[in-house]
């Protein structure tokens, strides 16, 4: 009998261990949080704004997924200070854009290095995460010049803090288009010892009202990030406006219905309903004419 009791006891104990093990495992799964990876790209548009393009991803079940709807705090770190600049919430793609209109809001440290931190405090699903982006400030000055009746765009790249020209840096020159910008000039335009490039502008590029907007871009530089400047000039072939916005067309709003469509279908409609009303009147006539 004693042996039987022992067997039962061992059996019960094993079941309890298994069950409690499972419960612990479930709880452990519940509390297991995923790590978040924050990526931030610095883009400076001269005389306009500084933008940080932020993306949050996570590895869940060995797959990279976008982390949506999480708040990311943006702060500026310099010397021993850290000043909060604001925050964004990631969209359905796990992305966000933090725009600073005033450059002076971000302060550099004593060495002229700007540091911006991006931090996520964590939630029930994801662990806390942070990312730091450091860059030096650069500027591009661009203008259009004419040499022998040929238009050129010339641009000079400068380190702002040191006020020194940056040579042997690659700059892209492109014309803004609707879907993808149009590159002009050589494939690689490297700045000379004066920090300058010069690129001829092709003729015949179409633009609204003949205006072309050129972009000179220092792209994803290790020290300076992305810096670009925009120059607009009337050097394009004007696009003839084919808009029918204010015309009476089949796709216009109802106050711009084509005249023929107002006349012809209404004639048909009123014509048909005139007959229908006449027929109903005939029914009344029948009911009143007994003889």
């Amino acid at each position: 009998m004693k042996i039987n009791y022992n067997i039962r006891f061992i059996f019960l104990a094993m079941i309890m261990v298994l069950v409690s093990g499972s419960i612990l495992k479930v709880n452990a799964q519940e509390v297991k949080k995923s790590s978040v990876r924050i990526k931030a790209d610095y883009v400076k548009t001269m005389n306009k704004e500084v933008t940080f393009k932020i993306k949050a991803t996570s590895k869940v079940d060995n797959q990279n997924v976008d982390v949506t709807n999480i708040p990311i705090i943006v702060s500026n770190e310099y010397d021993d200070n850290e000043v909060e600049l604001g925050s964004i919430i990631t969209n359905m793609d796990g992305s966000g854009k933090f725009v600073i209109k005033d450059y002076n809001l971000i302060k550099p440290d004593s060495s002229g290095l700007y540091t911006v931190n991006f931090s996520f405090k964590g939630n029930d699903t994801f662990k806390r995460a942070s990312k730091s982006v450091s860059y030096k400030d650069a500027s591009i000055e661009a203008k259009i010049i004419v040499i022998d009746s040929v238009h050129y765009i010339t641009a000079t790249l400068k380190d702002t803090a040191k006020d020194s020209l940056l040579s042997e840096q690659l700059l892209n020159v492109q014309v803004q288009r609707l879907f993808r910008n149009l590159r002009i000039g050589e494939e690689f335009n490297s700045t000379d010892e004066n920090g300058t490039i010069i690129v001829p502008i092709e003729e015949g590029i179409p633009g609204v009202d003949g205006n072309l907007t050129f972009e000179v871009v220092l792209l994803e530089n290790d020290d300076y990030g992305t810096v670009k400047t925009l120059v607009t000039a009337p050097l394009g072939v004007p696009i003839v406006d084919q808009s029918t916005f204010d015309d009476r067309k089949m796709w216009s709003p109802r106050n711009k219905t084509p005249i023929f469509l107002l006349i012809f279908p209404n004639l048909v409609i009123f014509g048909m309903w005139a007959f229908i009303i006449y027929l109903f009147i005939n029914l009344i006539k029948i009911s009143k004419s007994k003889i």
Partner: protein
Amino acid sequence: MKNYDTLLEDLAPKKFGKRGTIWTLFLSVIVIAGLIAYIDQVIKGQVVTNMRDYALWGIYISNFVFFVATSFVGSVTVAILRLTNNNWRTPLVRIAEIISLAAIVMAGITIMIDMGRPDRLLNLFIYARLQSPITWDVIIVPTSIALSFLLLYFPLLPDLAILKKHYSKTKPKLSNWYGKLALNWTGSPAQKLIQEKSIKIIAILIIPVGIILQTIDAWLFSTTYRIGWDSTNMGAYFISGAFVAGVGALIAVVYVIRRVRKLENYISDYHFDKMGKFLGLACLTYLYFNINEYLLPIFTAPVEEDIHLNALVSGEYAFLFWFAQIVGLLLPLLIVLFKNGRKPFPMFVVGMMVVVGSWWKRYVIVTPTLLHPFLPIEGVPESWHHYFPSIHEWLITAATLAMCMLIITFLVRFLPVIPIQRTAEERDMLKNTKNTES
């Protein structure tokens, strides 16, 4: 006069028998189930359907197109046969008029079912753009309902007066109703003159209205720049398809009424033979437009249309496509080419094949195109790449079909399905009467 009494007894409406009651109850149950599903759809919204961003028109619209097509029977059989003085039409026209009215009324209701916010129905009129085919549809459907009603009602007047007299002693209440509906019809020359003139106007008017209705229905699709719909053939294709669907429905309903009401003396093999030839003509016309619609694009189709055609001919929708083409068109055409195929029972089978084929044909016209947009379907759940109606959609659609049959059943129950006055006149049973219009 004894013959006339027999005729009156044969053609006067009759109470439902046991089978009639069961049939009516069966249809009522389906209608109630559909009504419950529809109330749920209104409360929860169209999320209860399987229509999503891509298949934004589903079974409701294909069902609507089917009803519109079936209603064409009023224009083709009644108006055309009347204007061409084909006397064999007499025992068939009333049934055609009933089907036509029931179908167009249900078409109007079905389009409202497809609306996410039916409470905003009035906005279709208030904010109508005359450029939009939807607006044309909103105008033509009520016009068609009014004309179909008048097409049924004017020729009924003499018969309603006959029924008033017939039931005056046995069923005074019913007689009273018939009297009211007969609008004091006495058959006086003045009344006959107005009636004849009115019927002629309706017969002429309903042909362009029927053609406009079918064409607008086609243009709802072809004015959108979509593969499978963007076709100049669509208007004529829809008219010929409606011709087939309407005559098919007429044949099936005529057979059932003839059998249930024992009207073999009035609707004979001769009438089925004529209807068979009529259907044959309709099928040949429709076949021609089908060839135009599907065969030519096989040679000329750009990539997107090729994908769509492949889905129809050998892909996801191949079964339904070939079912509609073979069962709904080719087989009926083959059967009615033979004299024996135009006997009543084979014709009933043909009529049913045509009706079922026509319904699925509309489904094949509406759905696959929506699932093949020019821009690829991206960033949506996999299930949105396909469409199959939800339980709500099936229940509601079944209810609209049942409701249509219920309207037909009740009209057949209370109206003479074969014009009494005109049949009596054609058989010289009434003295001193000029032939009445029917």
